[in-house]
């Protein structure tokens, strides 16, 4: 399974219908025409009106009053972005089993597990209620879920955090009144990306970097738009293998037949291997194929297994850790030289 569903992946017809219902149910008559993305989606920031005692926030799910001094913030799918600006949620949904993503776990020791995020009704409303949130910030596609959350506490709906992480981090800063902290965290992120882009650009010198996921009996190649793809190919400007564009296009991922392995022209290959039973054996089975051994990366011995949790995480902290992995594997001398002192890790070291 994916650690996180693509937050803005082209929805299925079912999702579209529910999304339309959500917009219809939550929008006020004054809202923009349907073809204009609502606040809190894509690159449209939330709209915040300060008033005595709090602020009104216009967001993807409508308009919500956020009182001053909210302490207990529960989230559905945005823990990465909250933690990135130093806000620890009291509850979050989980992935990859019953708990939070491994890189979030140290920060969420006292948080309540609110259920899974993959199934339409996987958010456990009883757990959300038990977490006693003052405010819920959720990335949910289903109107029913958003409405149910709003019955528990004021709920703000944000979307597209995976494709527009900086916009969502700024939104969270504006919603919680910590704009300066959000900007500082984003500045740290930009410094890190700029340094990594420079170092990796010089190290790789145009060589290609590809990502495959090993599953039982099949390999999936991941594209440039989702999960680790934007970090590799947009943030860091790395070159994808030709087959990525050919097979994945603008989608999330695509099945890669073994016959095409010799054509998978990745100079550096990163393998996402889930900690699921049988997957290691599956990888060994694939690796015994002559077609695997003909891949450029395999011929060079440049195949690296990485932690699937943050490579498929999609959140802003997960993306930061993907950069760390790339640096450790491809440019360890730059780290040893202190080039990235203060820039490694999932979030700025000074985060409270």
């Amino acid at each position, binding site marked *: 399974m994916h650690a996180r569903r693509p937050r803005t992946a082209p929805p299925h017809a079912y999702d579209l219908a529910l999304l339309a219902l959500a917009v219809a149910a939550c929008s006020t008559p004054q809202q923009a025409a349907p073809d204009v993305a609502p606040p809190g989606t894509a690159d449209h920031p939330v709209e915040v009106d300060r008033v005595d005692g709090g602020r009104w926030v216009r967001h993807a799910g409508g308009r919500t009053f956020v009182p001053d001094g909210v302490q207990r913030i529960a989230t559905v799918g945005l823990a990465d972005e909250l933690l990135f600006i130093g806000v620890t949620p009291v509850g979050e949904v989980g992935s990859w089993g019953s708990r939070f993503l491994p890189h979030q776990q140290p920060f969420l020791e006292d948080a309540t597990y609110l259920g899974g995020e993959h199934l339409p009704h996987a958010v456990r409303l009883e757990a959300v209620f038990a977490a006693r949130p003052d405010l819920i910030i959720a990335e949910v596609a289903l109107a029913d879920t958003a409405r149910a959350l709003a019955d528990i506490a004021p709920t703000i709906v944000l979307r597209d955090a995976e494709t527009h992480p900086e916009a969502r981090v700024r939104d969270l800063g504006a919603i919680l009144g910590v704009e300066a902290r959000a900007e500082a965290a984003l500045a740290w992120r930009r410094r890190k990306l700029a340094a990594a882009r420079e170092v990796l650009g010089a190290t790789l010198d145009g060589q290609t970097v590809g990502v495959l996921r090993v599953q*039982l009996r*099949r390999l999936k190649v991941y594209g440039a738009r989702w999960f680790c793809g934007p970090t590799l190919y947009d943030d860091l400007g790395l070159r994808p293998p030709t087959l990525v564009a050919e097979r994945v296009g603008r989608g999330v991922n*695509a*099945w890669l*037949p*073994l*016959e095409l392995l010799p054509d998978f022209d990745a100079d550096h290959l990163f393998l996402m291997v889930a900690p699921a*039973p049988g*997957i290691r*054996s599956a990888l060994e089975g694939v690796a015994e194929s002559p077609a695997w051994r003909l891949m450029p990366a395999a011929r060079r011995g440049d195949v690296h297994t990485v932690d699937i949790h943050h490579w498929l995480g999609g959140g802003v902290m997960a993306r930061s850790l993907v950069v760390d992995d790339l640096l450790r594997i491809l440019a360890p001398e730059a780290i040893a030289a202190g080039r990235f002192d203060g820039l490694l890790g999932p979030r700025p070291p000074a985060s409270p």
Partner: protein
Amino acid sequence: MTRRSSTGTLALGVAVCAGVLACAVASGTRSVPTASLWRSVLGAGDPVTDAVVLGVRLPRVVAAALVGAALSVAGALMQGATRNPLAGPSLAGLNTGATLAVLCGVLWLPGVSATAAMGVAFVGAAAAAAVALTLGAFGGLGGPSRLVLAGATLNLTLGAAIVGLVVHHQLHMDLLYWTTGGLIGVTWSQVRALAPATVLGLGLAVLLAPSVTALSLGDDAAGSLGLRAARTRALALGCVVLLAGAAVAVAGPIGFVGLIVPHLVRGLVGGDYRRIVPAAALAGATLLVGADLGVRLLAERVDVPLGCVTAPVGGAAFVALLWRGRAVAT
């Protein structure tokens, strides 16, 4: 059907099977010129073509042929030995039992080898067969549909256990494909594990075929021919478990092949299992290699599991058999 005409039918079957196998080796996602293909087959190919043809396509085609033959012959033996036209490894729950067993093996025996997975599958298939046959064929009540009902109950129960394990262990995407059956990514090591069990099972089936023919006439008739019905039936069902378990361990549950193919070949070569067994092996191999080729060609960009193709096709054929009433006469 005369011996001469059935021999001609078998010869035609061999030719068709060889043709489909050749097409399957020659076709795939990557275009390989015929000259390069032949050079590879003759041991003088370039590394990429060798890797694609000999390393990827050939094990998959061989596995498809073995699995198709195994499931079809298992179905034929099961129908003959139980005198139940609706018997088959998938409908009777054998495939699901083997699938659950392999899933348990994968979950609790990390790094389980292909050969060990096969052993686990045999256990699952044998347990499911024992339960289904106890509930169905030997229950003493009802007709052929009783085994189907017992199998349906088993399939539902064991299927729920499979889904429960997959959900509990958060294995949806990683194991989903395997639990729907298919031959993508089959390697030579799996073929090496599959082949001996399948060849052994097919050999046993050939040896048992005359006795199964007698058994298909009824226990009394078999007894009058000096046959020990219970012993023959047990041997035949052991053979079924061997064949179905081996097939499921490599390909996962592929539905309906074992049910439909015996009926199809019975219409071509008659009711003598000495002809039905080899014909079912040929037809099953041809059908599954062809279906897998179809999946590969039609779904070049979407990895449609083979079970998703054989199940609706087999289901439609099953309904047609029931509709025409042919299934009643083994």
